[in-house]
């Protein structure tokens, strides 16, 4: 017995010693650059090429980004390689933990706060030459703790998509395109038949939030410093959506047997939907025979309102060549690059100087860009993604639920984040 014990102890001792040695190696390899802050000089080790990590929507986007990066690489003489992430969040996290992150990468609004607060990101916004050209609401989406962190890559807004054939079949004309909530309720009812529903949307905050915006509400204030989820305006917005649901003139895409609003719309299960400009790609590829038009969302009690979604080009604080990365980002957010991205895979340019050209190139999609004037961003405080997914879970049963109670619990969760 004693012998066995001592052997076991030796084994355990060896393991622990091994663990300590290895962990010592782990901590020893740190670069001591934990205090990298935005105020200092940019690193510019030009011996190293840049790596760019993107979360691509498909081949068109990959090819387009590749071409733009290759053009910059040629011009600047710095090597740059684009890789497509299969799970962007996970691959970013791995890179940051190993202190070998990609130099430039796509970054979503809800991931910003997490990476900004742990010092992974370079707050380079103020050093951009084209800083003032970005839409102010996009800049505030990527401002954390007073610092403008990263350049908005592009953006999308939600608007009303209408199936023109079903519209005409129901005896409606252009004059009937809804401009108020009452008109929307009326046409939705007119368009609802045995085989189709008037309005089919995704049952989540990222769609229903548009009604909250039209009523004048939002989950948090502009700077994400105060929770305003259970305001009377938000309740009014959700209750309006609730009446449409109970009317039977609006249904969630999942109820219609579709994965998202665009699929329900393309399959003609709904005559209208609320989606962003990404729907154009899906319509061209999957439902080329469906004719549709885009209109601005109707005004609510507080006038026009919609939500906007955006990503930015993040630069890693640990990047050895931040100067080149910044130059690349300036190139990728330039008017020419953004307009060619837009032509290739559909997003709207994030800079105001490209607006006119984009509108004349895409006259039918102009309502999406018009949304930039009044669109509201989604909260970007750390942990907000969890709160929104909790809200989404509750919105699934909005039809029978209590709007006030749903928003109260979201308010409580958001307030907890701000403590």
């Amino acid at each position, binding site marked *: 017995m004693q012998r066995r014990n001592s052997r076991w102890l030796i084994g355990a001792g060896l*393991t622990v010693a091994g663990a300590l040695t290895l962990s010592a190696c782990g901590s020893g390899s*740190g670069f001591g650059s934990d205090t990298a802050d935005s105020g200092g000089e940019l690193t510019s080790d030009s011996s190293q090429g840049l790596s760019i990590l993107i979360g691509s929507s498909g081949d068109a986007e990959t090819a387009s980004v590749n071409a733009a990066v290759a053009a910059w690489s040629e011009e600047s003489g710095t090597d740059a390689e684009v890789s497509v992430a299969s799970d962007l969040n*996970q691959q970013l996290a791995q890179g940051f*933990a190993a202190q070998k992150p990609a130099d430039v990468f796509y970054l979503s609004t809800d991931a910003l706060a997490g990476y900004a607060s*742990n010092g992974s990101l370079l707050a380079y916004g103020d050093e951009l030459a084209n800083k003032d050209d970005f839409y102010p609401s996009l800049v505030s989406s990527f401002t954390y703790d007073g610092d403008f962190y990263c350049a908005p890559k592009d953006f999308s807004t939600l608007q009303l998509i209408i199936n023109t054939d079903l519209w005409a079949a129901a005896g409606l004309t252009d004059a009937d395109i809804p401009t108020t909530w009452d008109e929307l309720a009326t046409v939705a009812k007119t368009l609802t038949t045995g085989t189709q529903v008037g309005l089919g949307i995704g049952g989540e905050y990222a769609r229903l939030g548009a009604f909250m915006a039209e009523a004048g509400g939002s989950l948090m204030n502009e700077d994400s410093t105060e929770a305003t989820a259970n305001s009377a305006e938000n309740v009014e917005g959700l209750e309006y959506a609730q009446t449409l649901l109970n009317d039977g003139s609006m249904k969630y895409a*999942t109820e219609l*047997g579709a994965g998202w609003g665009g699929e329900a719309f393309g399959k003609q299960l709904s005559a209208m939907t609320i989606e962003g400009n990404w729907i154009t790609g899906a319509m061209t590829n999957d439902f080329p025979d469906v004719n549709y038009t885009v209109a601005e969302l109707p005004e609510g009690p507080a006038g026009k309102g919609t939500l906007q979604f955006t990503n930015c080009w993040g630069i890693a604080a640990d990047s050895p060549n931040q100067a080149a990365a910044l130059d690349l980002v300036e190139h990728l957010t330039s008017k020419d690059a953004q307009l060619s991205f837009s032509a290739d895979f559909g997003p709207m340019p994030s800079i105001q100087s490209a607006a006119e050209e984009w509108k004349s190139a895409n006259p039918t999609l102009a309502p999406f860009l018009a949304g930039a004037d009044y669109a509201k961003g989604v909260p970007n405080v750390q942990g907000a993604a969890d709160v929104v997914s909790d809200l989404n*879970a509750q919105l699934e049963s909005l039809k029978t639920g209590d709007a006030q109670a749903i928003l109260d619990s979201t308010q409580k969760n958001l307030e907890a984040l701000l403590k």
Partner: protein
Amino acid sequence: MSTSTRMARRSGIRGGEAASGWLFTAPMIILLGMFLVIPVLMALWVSFSDWNGRGSPFSGSVSFVGFDNYSALVGGGGLAEQDFGTALRNNAWYVLLVVPIQTMLSLFLAVLVNRQILRGRGFFRTAFYFPSVTSSVAITVLWLFLFSSTGAVNKLLGFIGVNGPNWFNDPSGVLHNILGVFGVQNGPAALTGNTFLGISFWEWLAGPSVAMSAFILMAVFTTSGTFMLLFIAALQNLGGDVVEAAMMDGANGWQRFWRVTLPQLRPTLFTVLTLGLIGAWQVFDQIYTGTQGGPGKTTLTPAYLSYQTAFTNQAWGQGAAIAFILFVIIVVFTLFQRWLLAERAVSARRMRLYVQTPTPGGSK
């Protein structure tokens, strides 16, 4: 005393054995240590630290925060606790249904295909085993199609006049739905008013959601083949003499199975239950590829929540803490089951069945 034994050991003819023993096991110890023990210890440290995902978790800027990460999960009162409670609730129902059903089904299938008289046994064995060798991602995608609102399952249900649910989009709990049929829409105040881990007892009793039920069916479908194989191996190891003896004693087929065959399968049963339990508590890939926790968070599981908390929400300590709580749960369940299935002396009540009592009239 101890020095003398050591001396004796060293000087003997087998003195060098210890060294060569260590040498031979060294590759495995190093491999296991490097890829298993050390990462686990590192994760344990992360669960007690405020590491934020940047750089090494052992660097100077990371500090020890005691049980902060754990207490946020089990008593924080916030969203973290509520999500963790929901995930545990979902997974507990999943385990409660998957483990018994898959064990019974696999045993049943094993007994069926083990019969000598069955024609084409090989075919059936392969057929039942097939789902187990298919990747779980492929099966999940298949399941998403089969159980879509207009999918094959609902078409079949339609033939017999049942209006099938919108499987993967239906967050309602099965038990709540059954109670709803009897007109019970809201639970008694005692259940709805009190909460455990942030969700009310009434919600704990909701049962698996309709979406989770589809996953339960899938788990049973994919794993019973593997466990059937274990049972077949065990059945083929059983000597025919015991069963023959039972036959001679006049036991019928039913009795032979329950009183003779099944008790001999106890070690295999333990293996199957343990593996099933561990697999069911760790369900991840189906959720990751299928529903990402939706609808209404009713397919959120601790394993998926741990991943989401760490990678999406950047709360690494909390993510690691979830993993360790899950580890403790699995160990406790396994120990409990080991105790339950332990060999014990036959109880007096049971013994009466086996004691030969001379019957005056004789048996038929």
